[in-house]
């Protein structure tokens, strides 16, 4: 399974999102620090879930990091996130 699929599966299970978009941006970072040639080092996540309602930004990000740890987090160099609640 690709890392992208692992991310999607984990987030789907953990957040039952209303919106979920996982984009592989590794190629945009070709040659940058952390770019490892695996083609799966840099991701961008857009996630909207009821579970984020009432939480601070830091709390939301922590929940996502937790959901992805230890795997596939150990294989990801960079994760950009846009996390919103449903209200």
């Amino acid at each position, binding site marked *: 399974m690709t890392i992208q699929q692992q991310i999607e599966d984990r987030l789907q299970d953990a957040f039952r999102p209303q919106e979920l978009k996982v984009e592989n941006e590794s190629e945009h*970072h070709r040659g*940058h*620090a*952390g770019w490892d040639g695996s083609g799966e080092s840099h991701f961008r996540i857009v996630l909207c879930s009821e579970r984020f309602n009432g939480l601070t*930004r*830091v709390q939301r*990000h*922590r929940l996502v*990091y937790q959901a992805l*740890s230890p795997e596939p*987090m150990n294989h990801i160099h*960079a*994760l*950009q*996130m*846009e996390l919103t609640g449903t209200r």
Partner: protein
Amino acid sequence: MSEDIQNEIQQLVKDNDVVLFMKGNRGVPQCGFSSRVVSVLNYLEVTYSDVNVLENPRIREGVKQFSEWPTIPQLYVKGEFIGGCDIITEMTLSGELETLFDNHSITYSKEASTRLREHNS
């Protein structure tokens, strides 16, 4: 050992109003995400301390435990962990960063902040 490093980090964020743990330093950031936070702070003319985690592996791991946050950069204001690159970017554009600085009496350029928001809206 690891308790020492936690105390050291505690002291750093206590002694300095605004602290950025980053890869590289403000002059030569070594990572695009660190670089972006540096750009925001510089543009807003905020006085801050930068800590290069690449020069100190113990701080690099220690700060992740300290904040329970697995990535660098990390910004602290008056001892409080504010967030990494995504959060700082969102807060800059929404005006929340200004409010945070106002609430903690951190000096910054209001004019630059307004300009930044207008150019990115």
